[in-house]
């Protein structure tokens, strides 16, 4: 076995895993926050995520068409697409809750879940329709900005592109902001209070519906940011691109302990790392018997094992108290 190679690629694989993990973490937050408040899986969150990527690509294409992409300062462009993607996904998430979930709040639990699956398919095909009418395209390519593709060689085996740094910095900022909002503001405390006991929260004068909308808004914004970063990092999106990352992010949320915000962050990073290491090392370690395409099988096997021994997830509570 080629040990120098195995050791040599380690830092690069670690970096790739962390980037992928941040992406999963940002998406997973949307699942976990909504679950925390409503005990409901927002199956449409994968589309809410990818809509952020589409908002981003549309702005970039418009700027490019107007010849502004090269003339505007690139950090400004990045901030613009991030903010717009977050706003787009947040608005979508709030509307979906208002239209498709809230009227079903009192219905048996399976009903809103089915509604969410319906919304998910509806949004996929709506995006497809809009893009085919508007751009006559199925796959959209993120226009590149030259700066973003510049790479720094850190060591002979590790180099990092500007866009990877952008993704890491942006993701860290988002996670920090979310943490601060949820743990250090009054409205964040209200989100946690509503998650624990809606009736008691309403007796505190908290408008529970408004807090639920806010939860969808924040989760949607995080998903939208992830969508834009996904587009910037991987470059190609289509109307169905949200589905698999969404499913994996949901898994990450379960892995971390669904309903638990730090758990979503940890679960996302762990899943990203598992996937990256499996993609790079499986074929090397098995002499090519298992190729990189087995990465998901490996990652999900580990996941199943973890959940067998920790059914509540890595950071999930062992006992859940409910009044």
């Amino acid at each position, binding site marked *: 076995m080629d040990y120098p190679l195995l050791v040599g690629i380690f830092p690069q694989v670690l970096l790739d895993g962390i980037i992928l993990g941040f992406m999963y973490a940002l998406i997973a937050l949307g699942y976990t926050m909504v679950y925390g408040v409503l005990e409901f899986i927002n199956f449409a969150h994968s589309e809410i995520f990818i809509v952020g990527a589409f908002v981003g690509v549309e702005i970039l294409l418009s700027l490019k068409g107007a010849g502004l992409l090269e003339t505007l300062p690139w950090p400004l462009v990045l901030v613009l697409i991030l903010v717009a993607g977050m706003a787009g996904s947040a608005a979508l998430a709030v509307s979906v809750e208002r239209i498709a979930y809230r009227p079903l709040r009192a219905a048996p639990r399976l009903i809103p879940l089915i509604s969410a699956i319906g919304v998910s398919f509806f949004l996929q095909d709506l995006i497809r329709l809009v893009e085919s009418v508007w751009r006559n395209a199925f796959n959209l390519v993120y226009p590149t900005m030259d700066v973003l593709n510049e790479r720094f060689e850190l060591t002979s085996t590790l180099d990092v592109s500007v866009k990877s740094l952008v993704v890491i910095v942006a993701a860290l900022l988002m996670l920090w902001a979310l943490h601060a909002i949820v743990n250090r503001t*009054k409205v964040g*405390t*209200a989100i*946690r*209070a509503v998650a*624990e*006991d809606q*009736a*008691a*929260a*309403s*007796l*505190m*004068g*908290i*408008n*529970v519906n408004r807090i639920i909308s806010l939860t969808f808004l924040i989760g949607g914004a995080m998903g939208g940011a992830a969508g834009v970063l996904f587009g910037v990092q991987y470059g190609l999106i289509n109307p169905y691109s949200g589905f698999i990352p969404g499913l994996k992010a949901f898994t990450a949320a379960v892995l971390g302990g669904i309903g638990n915000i730090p758990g979503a962050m940890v679960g996302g990073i762990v899943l990203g790392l598992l996937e990256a290491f499996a993609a790079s090392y499986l074929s090397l370690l098995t002499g090519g018997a298992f190729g990189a395409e087995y990465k998901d099988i490996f990652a999900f096997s580990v996941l199943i094992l973890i959940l067998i021994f920790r059914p509540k997830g890595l950071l999930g509570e062992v006992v859940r*108290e409910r*009044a």
Partner: protein
Amino acid sequence: MLSVDVLDVAYGQIRALKGVALAVGRGEIVALLGNNGAGKTTTLKTISGLLRPTSGTITLEGQPLAGVPPHEIVMRGLAHVPEGRRIFNRLTVRENLVMGAYTRRDAGIAADLDRVFALFPRLGERVAQVAGTLSGGEQQMLAIARALMLGPRLLLLDEPSMGLAPVLVEQIFDTIVDINRQGTTILLVEQNAAMALSIAHRGYVLETGSIALAGTAAELSDNADVRRAYLGE
């Protein structure tokens, strides 16, 4: 201050309250007594808007409360300490109290914090503790303190003695009297009739969803039926 008239409440087909009528005057402590399942909790939940009545009227300081959601009712000066305390277990003591003051923008919040810490010194020593790790008595204190942070003129208390050791019950009841003396009107639901009548001005007895008896605390304490059914004689 509060008046409830011919109130009917049902859970699906089950009628839990049938024509309940009661009134609470400003400055009073009124006890609402009755056995398990009589409808005491249902009465309080309907007053605070958690349940919708099928018919009847509820007015608070002359304003009808019909159809008003709970988060708006509490802004009109009513606070409800629900049965089983329902504190936020995963929040700290301080965060629970901040939730009590959620809707307030006035300058009196700090003074009210001092006031609840004066009433419940043990909470003051545990502000940073996660509420779920408090003892039962401390949790009840927190539930009452949290409600006081709303700055209520009328306080509904649902079985504050539930599950507490007798010495703690005495302490909580002493505090209820203090809160009342400081100007808050109180509607107190209790199964512990002796304790409740010892601090109340007036009382009602609820039996299977209807008011069976009403009177001053002294009258109820002397009533033969009450003595037999609720005071264990």
